């Protein structure tokens, strides 16, 4: 059964349980009969497996487009960034190192970096144009069952709940770093805060989120 009812309980143990469940649905089940995790897909992609590539795209493209849209603020630019990022995934999948993190983190970081690069090099002229689209309804993707979509929605809701656990200052520092690509020094300058304060906020925020990571997945 899906743990849909746990949203009301924002306690860390429950949230960690949900994330573990999501990981079980979407990630590694090495040696089992379930779906391969993103790391395994990347290994197959590195050998030129187009089917694995399609599977990875179906699994991460919606989250990737949401991320690119959040960074760029323009739907058209976000779709271009998504396209470029997945082409990067195809050509650079051989460089994926599971010791540094899981495949999902690697793909999302590529999308994030591509989007940040676009912001830096082109300037987000149309940044505000499609901002409203970031709230667009999430539709089930090709090859995704309604149950999967529900899990995905539930997982995002739980992650958003986890983000809500952060203080406003911590969340703001995190968002400036991740979505706007600012360094801690630039964040301090932007906010008019001491650098040490910003570093503490970032570290505390990442520690909180890190406690949500199922350790068996993180070690996989």
């Amino acid at each position, binding site marked *: 059964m899906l743990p849909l009812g746990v949203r009301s309980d924002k306690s860390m143990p429950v949230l960690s349980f949900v994330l573990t469940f999501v990981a079980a649905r979407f990630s590694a089940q090495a040696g089992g009969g379930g779906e391969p995790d993103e790391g395994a897909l990347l290994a197959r992609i590195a050998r030129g497996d187009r089917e694995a590539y399609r599977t990875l795209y179906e699994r991460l493209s*919606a*989250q990737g487009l949401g991320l690119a849209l959040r960074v760029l603020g323009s739907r058209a630019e976000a779709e271009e960034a998504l396209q470029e990022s997945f082409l990067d995934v195809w050509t650079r999948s051989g460089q994926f190192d599971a010791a540094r993190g899981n495949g999902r983190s690697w793909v*999302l970081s590529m999308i994030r970096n591509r989007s940040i690069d676009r912001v830096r090099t082109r300037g987000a002229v149309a940044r505000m144009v499609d901002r409203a689209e970031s709230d667009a309804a999430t539709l089930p993707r090709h090859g995704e069952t309604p149950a999967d979509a529900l899990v995905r929605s539930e997982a*995002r809701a739980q*992650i958003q709940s986890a*983000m809500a656990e952060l203080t406003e200052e911590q969340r703001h520092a995190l968002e400036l770093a991740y979505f706007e690509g600012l360094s801690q020094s630039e964040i301090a300058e932007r906010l008019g805060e001491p650098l040490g304060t910003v570093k503490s906020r*970032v*570290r505390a925020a990442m520690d909180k989120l890190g406690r949500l990571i199922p350790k068996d997945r993180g070690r996989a």
Partner: protein
Amino acid sequence: MTCAEFKELVGAYALGALSPEECAACDAHLSSTTTHEDCWHALSDANAAAALVAMSVPAVTPPPAVWAAIERRLDRAAAPAPRRRSTEWVAWTIGVAALVLVFFIARDRDRLNDQVKLASAASQRVQQERASCATDLEHARADADTQHQALELLSRRGTKLIALAPQPSDDTTRVASVMFNPESQRAFLIGHGLAAPTGKDYQLWIIRGDQKIPAGLLHGDAAGGAIVAAIDPKLLGTAPDAIAVTLEATGGAPQPLGPIVLVGKI
């Protein structure tokens, strides 16, 4: 950098929020062969936490066109392109050959233009020389004809040969004789040393009583060769009394003004 220092920074490292120097220090630490205190696990967790930040935003399903565009790009990159390469190679070869050809044509065009100009000038010179030769030949033919007629007249019966006396009598630089046939009223002057100085011409005169009738200019051979000049028969209708040569200004004169250098009584 120690492992403890790395783990202090690993969250910001995963977020991409470090300065370039800090980032390089973290990279160097991970690359070091020292025994790490769970650094890789810390990094993996931090990356997973950063992914949670990414997943906190609403997912947006991309339109099918995005995947279609990705597939097109992959197909284009994967498709073998020997024909295209071959076409490109041929195109480049033709292009380079055309450039080389244009270069040589441009270079040779100037050279050919110069050659055409030289050839044209040479041709002009040849034409002039040909015309000059034709004139010379015409003159030579006329001279030969005159000499032939003079010889023919000389062989006729009744032809008189009158030697013209130099004036002064001891001047031997100019020598001339006139052959005259009263019956046919034809006469020729034969002489040499009759090349006139610059600005002067020797002029022949028919003298009849008090009349001094101009009978033409004598153009002697500058090399000192003999000349033969025909005398207009119209001037000989009535037998002349004498024939004289004067040295006149260039072009001659209607009446003798210069000194008489040769004279002979008929």
